[in-house]
């Protein structure tokens, strides 16, 4: 059981004793399970100076602080704690709470007030409330810290992903400069192809990143128009045809003659291009990619099926994380930014939809995007029109 440190500061020995007794026997549930009980270790101080010394030794989680103390008053203690940025939940004990005292103490960060005299029950209620507040505050801090960590990781990985192509390009320039590349035009052609591929990859990464940032910030300009998903899919397939052809991969579109939808063209292109280019990149040579477009139950369904290497369940779980590219001997030559599927997922979410993965290692993967179509508002029909 976690023990919270409580410091009670009051010049009346009776109060210190009573509070200690009540709190020593008290436990508070902070969650659903019995393990989430907390108990209390009570320390006491009889004046402001002792209180500050006690805080100096160890910061209390909860501070019960009498306003009226000899020499250094409760408010002065509070002021000093605030200045020292001591992180504690403070409950002020007041015999006569003037409005001024309350305002001042609140400004200084006091969380609650307990009027004197108080019953054991009133004390318990006040402490429970303070514990709850403490837990909420801890949770908020934890989340903020996690967010900071995620951001830090993202930037570290991004730095690496941007440096890698630069290093490759510099390496090629270096061997051209010092003559290690020799004089064979075929070697030069290879180097030029690689440099273009790496700079192209870097550009794609920056584009994806900007795209993702725009979607996440909610600032992306969306232009919803009536379009035909089949047509967008057909264009995406055409775009992937050259890369597919090079490796003998067949691309097939299965769709009714037209699949109308109110959508942003760029967003649909994002989904289809990413899924289809992945299906080609991670396919085996002479494999096939099937793209299914359909409308069903108020949603447009886009499914892209490949005959590639597939994924193990633990790999599927990591698939939608940013910069995750599943590394294996067979994918090492595949270039990618690691942001494509994040984009697909975020775009799908813009439509209130989602992406699902059905994968069998060694057999292939099917990615299915379900985009709910907003129900059209009923068109009012005037009686005389009939």
């Amino acid at each position, binding site marked *: 059981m976690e023990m919270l440190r409580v410091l009670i500061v009051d010049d009346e020995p009776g109060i210190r004793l009573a509070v200690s007794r009540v709190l020593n026997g008290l436990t508070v549930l902070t969650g659903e399970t019995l393990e989430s009980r907390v108990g209390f270790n009570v320390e006491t101080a009889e004046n402001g100076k002792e209180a500050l010394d006690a805080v100096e030794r160890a910061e209390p989680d909860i501070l019960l602080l009498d306003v009226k103390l000899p020499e250094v008053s409760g408010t002065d203690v509070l002021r000093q704690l605030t200045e020292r940025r001591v992180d504690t939940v403070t409950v002020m004990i007041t015999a006569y709470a003037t409005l001024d005292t309350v305002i001042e103490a609140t400004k200084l960060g006091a969380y609650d007030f307990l009027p004197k005299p108080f019953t054991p029950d009133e004390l318990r209620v006040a402490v429970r409330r303070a514990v709850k507040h403490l837990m909420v505050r801890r949770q908020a801090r934890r989340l903020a810290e996690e967010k900071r960590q995620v951001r830090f990781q993202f930037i570290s990985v991004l730095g*690496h992903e941007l440096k890698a192509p630069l290093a490759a390009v510099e390496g*090629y320039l270096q061997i051209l400069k010092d003559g290690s590349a*020799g004089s064979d035009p075929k070697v030069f052609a290879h180097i030029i192809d690689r440099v273009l591929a790496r700079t192209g990859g870097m550009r794609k990464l920056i584009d994806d990143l900007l795209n993702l940032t725009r979607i996440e910030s909610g600032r992306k300009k969306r232009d919803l128009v009536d379009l035909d998903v089949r047509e967008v899919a057909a264009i995406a397939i055409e775009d992937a045809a050259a890369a597919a052809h090079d490796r003998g991969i067949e691309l097939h579109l299965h769709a009714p003659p037209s699949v109308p939808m109110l959508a942003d063209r760029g967003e649909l292109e994002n989904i289809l291009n990413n899924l289809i280019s992945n299906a080609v990149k991670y396919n085996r040579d002479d494999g096939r990619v099937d793209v299914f477009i359909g409308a069903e139950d108020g949603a447009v369904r886009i499914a892209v099926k490949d005959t590639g290497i597939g994924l193990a369940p633990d790999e599927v779980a990591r698939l939608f994380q940013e910069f995750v590219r599943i590394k294996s001997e067979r994918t090492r030559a595949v270039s990618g930014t690691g942001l494509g599927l994040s984009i697909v997922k975020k775009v799908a979410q813009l439509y209130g939809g989602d992406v699902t993965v059905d994968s069998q290692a060694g057999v292939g993967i099917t990615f299915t995007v379900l985009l709910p179509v907003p129900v059209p508002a009923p068109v009012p029909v005037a009686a005389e029109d009939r």
Partner: protein
Amino acid sequence: MTSMEAPTRNATVLLVDDDDDFLFQHKALLERAGFSVTTAGSLREAEATEERPDVAVLDLMMENADDGFVLSYRLKKRFPGLPIIVVTAVTSETGMMFDPTSPQERAWVSADKVLSKPIRFEQLLSEIERLLGATESR
């Protein structure tokens, strides 16, 4: 002999990295420095090498994060006394350091030298020469 012609050293370097650009560039650099170079893009490819190289340069993180060390261990078993350099970007990315000269780390890092990526070619070259010199003088 023109200046473009490489000096020959009669030594073969086995170069293993999953980064094709790194392989291409370092093969070119090492060949120009007079070495014969065999390349492999993965642990498996490297293990298929039949002839004993004179020195091996292995990337640490390939398909698995420790492939370089695993391969180093296996190559040392297969070719006793083979000098091995492991190169890795792990130090510049995580701050994690390896020092194969310390007794504790020798216990599990069987490489002779660990170099941090990005590596300077001159440094790689001088390490290779140092290790080759050490084997010859034995």
